[in-house]
């Protein structure tokens, strides 16, 4: 597994000796506490990580990513490029949907027709798959996928949310609406109950194609938005796994004898991005100076309790295109001061920062950043605003001040996703950054499927971006899960997709 990176500030935690495990007699079923309800289970409607937490147990795609993010055959046993724009898949045989419908080439074709058709266009998934022109049935268990342009990350995308296979008979029979609430897939668990904003009940799929799996009889996901409440539920044994443990809560988890803390690095990275249209941030030197001024290690160490990983560019170490040779800007306030002075930035220059008000952790981080910047003579005004307004209005329209928080995962685990969206001129989340060379490299990596070639381009691109410093890259997020000791074989997922088929209870 990949590294988490946390370490304990309070080593040698004392656990309550007499704490009895309150969940001990729940039997062969578990309860998971998650923080939000995606509202719709239809894969083409969603882009929420929380969807995948549950839906990974219900749906499967042709290709899947295992817990270590390696691409694996899923419902397709194998695939090959017939040419640059044709891909052929051999499908797994003997798989049935939860409702008894057989899985076959028709189902795959139906799935993609739906995704790329009228219904799919209403949702956000459609745009990820526009490089697919059509899907054709070759025989019952073979399909070919025609592409209208080469797509180097297509296979990764096929492991994405929108490309999971849905049962054609069921979907046509029940309306689209009902499918939202009562999804049917081929996964290890079938959904037998869903109360919106309360709970989702999954039961073992007896006919699952992986031998002997799943091990659990039943999994219930409870939706508990408030972290404190989630922790309370965990402490009282009402849930076995708690998603999204806050750093502040880790001590309590570690102090409770029947709980263990699991940490895992995620693809999501957090940055304070610069709006380069605003002076003095139009100067590369100023941006670099700010990078030097901030002690990212201390932030990770102190505020995140060590649960964060330093990054050098706007991507995680999990991402294809990450450049391990680049080291994060060092903490050097003296140098920062000099550079600012050289760039003619006056002492006490004010910078507006926009952050979402509902992210408690980041609020603390921003305050620390403000503190560091003050040391080099910059004054930061922190505006905490409604998150939705920030991402859907302020950032796209360049109204987010000098700097704003952005977290980004790059769901394809390929730097293309991040880099293109963030640095290509005119993209939604790139209000002002523009660099000819960057544009060139971005275009170049999209025209080839040769991964080595692309890797080279990315190395060049990252070096360039590192120097241009369009943001302060703060850290790669580490997800924290708290788990009841009675669970075995639970491995925290890198990207929220909680795989539960191997999990057993003591």
């Amino acid at each position, binding site marked *: 597994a990949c590294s988490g990176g946390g370490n304990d500030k309070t080593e040698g935690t004392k656990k309550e000796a007499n704490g009895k495990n309150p969940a001990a007699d729940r039997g062969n079923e578990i309860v998971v506490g998650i923080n939000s309800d995606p509202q719709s289970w239809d894969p083409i409607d969603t882009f929420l990580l929380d969807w995948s937490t549950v839906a990974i147990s219900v749906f499967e795609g042709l290709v899947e990513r295992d817990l270590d993010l390696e691409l694996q055959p899923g419902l397709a046993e194998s695939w090959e490029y017939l040419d640059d724009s044709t891909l052929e898949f051999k499908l797994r045989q003997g798989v049935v949907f939860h409702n008894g419908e057989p899985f076959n080439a028709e189902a795959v074709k139906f799935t993609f027709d739906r995704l790329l058709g009228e219904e799919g266009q209403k949702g956000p998934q459609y745009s990820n798959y526009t490089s697919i022109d059509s899907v054709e049935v070759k025989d019952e268990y073979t399909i070919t996928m025609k592409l209208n342009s080469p797509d180097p990350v297509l296979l990764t995308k096929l492991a994405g949310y929108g490309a999971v296979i849905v049962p054609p008979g069921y979907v046509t029979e029940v309306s689209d609406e009902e499918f939202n609430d009562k999804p049917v897939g081929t996964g290890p668990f079938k959904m037998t109950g869903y109360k919106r904003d309360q709970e989702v009940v999954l039961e073992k799929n007896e006919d699952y194609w992986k031998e002997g799996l799943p091990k659990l009889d039943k999994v219930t996901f409870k939706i508990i938005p408030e972290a*404190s409440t989630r922790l309370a539920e965990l402490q009282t044994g009402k849930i076995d796994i708690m998603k999204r443990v806050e750093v*502040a809560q880790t001590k309590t988890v570690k102090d409770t004898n029947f709980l263990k803390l699991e940490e895992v690095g995620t693809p999501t990275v957090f940055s304070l991005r610069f709006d380069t249209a605003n002076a003095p941030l139009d100067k590369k030197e100023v941006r670099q100076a700010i990078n030097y001024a901030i002690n990212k290690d201390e932030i990770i160490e102190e505020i995140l309790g060590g649960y964060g990983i330093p990054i050098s560019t706007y991507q995680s170490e999990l991402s294809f295109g990450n450049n391990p040779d680049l080291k994060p800007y060092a903490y050097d306030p003296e140098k920062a001061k000099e550079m600012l002075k050289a760039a003619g930035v006056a002492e006490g220059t004010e910078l507006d920062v926009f952050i979402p*008000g*509902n992210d408690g952790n980041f609020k603390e981080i921003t*305050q620390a950043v403000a*503190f560091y910047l003050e040391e080099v003579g910059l004054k930061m005004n922190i505006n*905490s*605003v*409604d998150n939705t307004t920030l991402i859907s209005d302020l950032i796209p329209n360049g109204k987010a001040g000098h700097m704003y928080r952005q977290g980004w995962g790059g769901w394809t685990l390929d730097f293309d996703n991040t880099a293109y969206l963030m640095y290509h001129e005119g993209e939604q989340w790139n209000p002002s950054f523009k660099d000819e060379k960057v544009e060139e490299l971005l275009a170049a990596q999209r025209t080839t499927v040769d991964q080595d070639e692309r890797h080279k381009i990315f190395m060049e691109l990252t070096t360039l971006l590192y120097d241009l410093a369009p943001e302060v890259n703060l850290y790669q997020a580490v997800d924290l899960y708290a788990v009841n000791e009675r669970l075995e074989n639970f491995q925290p997922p890198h990207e929220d997709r909680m795989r539960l088929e191997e999990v057993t209870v003591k």
Partner: protein
Amino acid sequence: MTKLQIEEVETRPEKTILQRFFRFVKKNPAGFVGMILVFLAVGSALFAPWIVSFDPSKASLTSRLDPPFWADPSGESTFFLGADQLGRDLFSRIIYGARISLMVGFFGVLISLVIGTIMGLISGFFGKWLDDLIMRVADIQLAFPFILFAIVIMSVLGTGVWKIIIILGITYWVGFARLIRGQVISLKEQEFVHAAKAIGGTNFTIIRKHILPNVMSSILVLGTMYIAEFILLEASLTFLGLGVDPTIPSWGGMLADSRNYITSAWWTSVFPGIAIMLTVLGFNLLGDWLRDKYDPNMKM
């Protein structure tokens, strides 16, 4: 027969200020407690720099979440009430926090009071379609979700303490308007208002000289209670992520931001909680006392 001047004697001797004060305390212990609490809060806000020696925004990540010195077994902590999640002195933040909290309370109430009073006076005094109109606007205001209203205003005007004050002020005028409207409706039928008309007073003079002074006490009462409510609302807004700039110490912000530390570093939320509680309690008790004082039924 001799005319005799008989003196009217005061059987009750004149009281000194101190005696009067003790009498007040004895008769209104709740009001007195309220006053003390409000004085404390207002005092902290006004004299914060003289009360504390620490800089409330001085962060020091190494002393992050240090417990209060008297509760620190290792004896390293130097903080009176401990340090917060950025290693800032909790005590000085609480003292300075009184500023934002009271500012939100005071100015928020001022805005809603002014709007509400004007609306209530117009609505109650002139009645008819104006009344209908204003009361319908009030209905609209009430039916419109507060949070949504806050988000709309903030996305149009931006964020900050003053925006919060404006939002609270605009939302809560309805309370004042309704209260005052009701009172004006009954005041308007009072003989002295008729009298004011009979001696040739215009509507404006009647409202200004005769109506307004007589609703002032209720306004004051509701005002003190709203101050308390606004202090809490600022906390709730922060909880929902719509609060003030996190570097500025505010009780609501401290409480909302420290809620995850309740079990691991209790002082971060307990002390701001107590500060809010005492102040809110103080304003409420003060309001209650004013209400009793001004309630005409309580007069002997």
